[in-house]
């Protein structure tokens, strides 16, 4: 009986055979995005840092904890703050859930950013993976917007004024700025309408978009020929000697894709036996490790540090300085110098440059020594933003004036 039930669920041969292990991946809805075999090289920590997986798992954790938090949250100002207090004081595991959601959200911003840096340094955005880079950059913006919309929901002073500052930065954009701000807030100031809009964006619109883009992002990895090989491979331009291209042939079936186009989108490079291992168990085990490490880190943070919650939002009491969420502090710093030029134009140009990067970077080589200019320019921009961010975070006091972080009582972190 039990056996027949199991057989109806897992149709393939038992995983003790090579065929069985291929079928385990192939016939499983949740696993079929994987190839049956993966290169050993791609499983190494130093190849990807598993940053994509970590980001994906953080998204999963955020989805689960976020869903749990939704059971306790009312998106209107008179209740939202009290709901935070109820989570903290009376809901079973309430503080733990909120802390996990908060810290996973912050970690996700970091993880996605590091993932982008890793892909840039590996040159993995180059042909044929140009479009997946664009999808990735869009996902980065979705993550930032998700974090930004979530920031308002506790409805405390910090949330209220950070979002006030944030939306004012948006409003200072030329032409569309004021319109976008009104659309975002449902009015000209932060109030009931704004909280509802941020909530709907945060729990429905943006997660939906992110889920769709994540699916495209993962699907494209396979369709673009799997993970990019290491940029440190000695002979980059020609395929490694041990891989032999399978020529398209009329005698062989390639599955639906092959039938549709007549031949595979890319010539599949089948690695030699000693360079590859079955995804089951090796890749899955490592993905499991990535997941467990991520969840352990988030849980440990949630146990050690409470998510901040300041006084209830009071539109008549402006804190000085009012700071945007930390990852936008670089932009706030720029805005403080010149709202239109350095605050909006410069970041907009950078975003555009990031998005279109694969299309104007004509250098075909992925080897670091051929890309010194690109690498150092990128490092410069990242470093400059980090410096601005740190200035905004630690060196700005009342009236956005310069203060030393060790000077007492004047500074403050966002």
């Amino acid at each position, binding site marked *: 009986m039990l056996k027949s039930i199991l057989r109806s669920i897992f149709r393939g041969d038992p*995983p*003790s055979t*090579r065929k069985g*292990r291929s079928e385990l991946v192939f016939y499983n809805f949740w696993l079929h995005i994987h190839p049956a075999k993966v290169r*050993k090289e791609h*499983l190494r920590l130093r190849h990807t840092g598993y940053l994509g997986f970590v980001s994906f798992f953080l998204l999963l954790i955020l989805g689960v904890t976020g869903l749990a938090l939704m059971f306790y949250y009312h998106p209107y100002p008179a209740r939202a703050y*009290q709901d935070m*207090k*109820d989570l*903290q*004081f*009376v809901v*079973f*595991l*309430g*503080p*733990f859930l909120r802390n996990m959601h908060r810290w996973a959200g912050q970690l996700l911003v970091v993880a996605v950013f590091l993932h982008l840096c890793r892909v840039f340094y590996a040159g993995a955005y180059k042909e044929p993976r140009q479009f997946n880079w664009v999808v990735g950059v869009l996902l980065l913006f979705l993550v930032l917007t998700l974090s930004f919309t979530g920031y308002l929901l506790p409805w*405390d*002073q910090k949330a209220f004024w950070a979002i006030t500052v944030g939306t004012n930065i948006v409003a200072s954009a030329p032409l569309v700025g004021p319109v976008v701000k009104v659309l975002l807030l449902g009015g000209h100031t932060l109030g009931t309408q704004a909280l509802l809009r941020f909530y709907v964006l945060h729990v429905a619109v943006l997660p939906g978009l992110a889920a769709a883009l994540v699916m495209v992002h993962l699907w494209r990895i396979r369709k673009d020929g799997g993970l990019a090989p290491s940029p440190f491979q000695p002979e980059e331009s020609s395929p490694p000697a041990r891989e032999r291209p399978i020529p398209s042939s009329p005698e062989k079936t390639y599955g639906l894709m092959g039938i549709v186009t007549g031949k595979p989108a890319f010539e599949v490079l089948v690695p030699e*036996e*000693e360079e590859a*291992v*079955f995804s089951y*168990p*090796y890749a*899955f*085990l*490592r993905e*499991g*490790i990535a997941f*467990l*490490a991520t*969840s*352990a880190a988030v*849980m*440990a943070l*949630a*146990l050690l540090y409470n998510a901040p*919650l*300041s*006084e209830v939002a009071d539109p008549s*009491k402006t804190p000085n300085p009012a700071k945007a969420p930390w990852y936008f502090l670089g932009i706030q710093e720029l805005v403080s110098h010149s709202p239109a030029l350095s605050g909006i134009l410069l970041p907009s140009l950078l975003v555009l440059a990031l998005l279109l990067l694969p299309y104007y970077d004509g250098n075909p080589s992925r080897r670091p020594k051929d890309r010194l200019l690109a690498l150092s320019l990128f490092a410069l921009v990242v470093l400059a933003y980090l410096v601005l961010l740190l200035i905004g975070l630690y060196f700005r006091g009342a009236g956005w004036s310069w203060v030393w972080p060790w000077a007492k009582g004047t500074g403050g972190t966002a």
Partner: protein
Amino acid sequence: MVLGLAVGQRHRGDRMRDWARLVFFLLCLANMVLLGLALARAARPGWAAYQRSYHRLEAQYEPDAAAKAAVEGTPVAIAQIILPGLQRVDRCTTCHQGVENPAMKGAPEPFSYHPGISRHPPSRFGCTICHGGQGLATDLAAAHGRVPHWPQPLLPSEYVRASCGQCHTKGDVPGVPELAEGRHLFDSHGCRGCHRLRGVGGTIGPDLSREGATRRDPAWLERHFLDPRAVSPNSVMPNFHFTPGQAKELTYYMLSLTGEEMSSYYTSESVIPSVPYGRELFARKDCIACHSIGGVGGKSGPDLEGVTRRHSARWLDEHFVNPKLVSPGSTMPAYDLTADERTALIRFMAVATGKDAEALLAGGAKSLTPEEAAVEAGARAFVHYGCVGCHGQGAAGGVANPNSQGGQVPSLIHVADDYKKSEVMAIILDGKTPAMANPSKPAPPLTMPSWKGTVNEEDLHNIVEYLWSLKPRGESSRW
């Protein structure tokens, strides 16, 4: 886990050293431990221990072992008082379980009985409306509000009575003379000249309508009243040289100004119908002009000594509402009195004697000409709007205003010599910035604010009449 164990099998072609299996297993353990820690923390809240101690305390009073065991085994649960009318939820009774149990008189904290709150039952008032603190919280430090980001810590016990003034905004509160005294000091010293309170007052100092909520710090407030610059060095507020007692009374009054939004249940009894309040009303309505007490006073109405023995309280109350209906042929006008005010008057009449009447007569219930009445009203308005705060008691000046001409806010005693009435009215309505004695120094801190929209026409005329009455006699040809 299953996955991890399955890796134990070796297959042909798997040529990777597999340390990953161990890491996977250890991380599984780590995750379970972390989840276990979170569950353990959630399952053992601090308040549950307090409740179990309370149940043990209660069990002492049970006669037999079975009853004791039953009480001790009472399941623990968060207790909360939901107060929609006060926009609060108070969970204080989660630990303070004995608050309404007289058997807990003298029990150790946090279980002791709270005496004297029969008129303000916790079920309708909760705890935090008087004591402050964080009602939503269920752990000690957070509930007592002594944590960052909670602006209302518990009030020190000697200031808790100040909270009575949140609802009892008029008259005096028995047992809290400080409130009425503080309110009186606030009015008589012209604080409204600079500070706005419930929509009336100047704009030089901060609005005080929510001062008790935003600055819930009695020590700071008291030091501030004794010397404003001791706690806020750039304050332009003059030092009024209050005594420590007065500073405390003003602090009480400030603490009562929380601007709390309450439903009508809580605001309906803003006045406590006490004897002193009845006496105040009796004087304000000038009852002694027609009535006598113990033979002292006016003769056109009946003597009021023993009136509460002659008539029931109900009769007197209805008589106040419509004298002619209850007592045909009465010439007494129907005054517009609230139920509390009628009760207060009846209570005062029950204890009033001839001595009270003499005191009331000495207090100056004299008939006034329209001009004198205007001057009198003007003098009251001069205090009510806080003009005395800067222009001094009796408009005699004396409040320092550095770098203005003369270095002081001007005295208004001689204003009739230098200005026309219309000019003074214009200054009151439009405000005025004093000329600087030395243009290179900072501008004088105190300026005459614009009173347009705040002072009505009648008060404006009365204030001017009052100022004109101040001119010392025989000095009209001074200039």
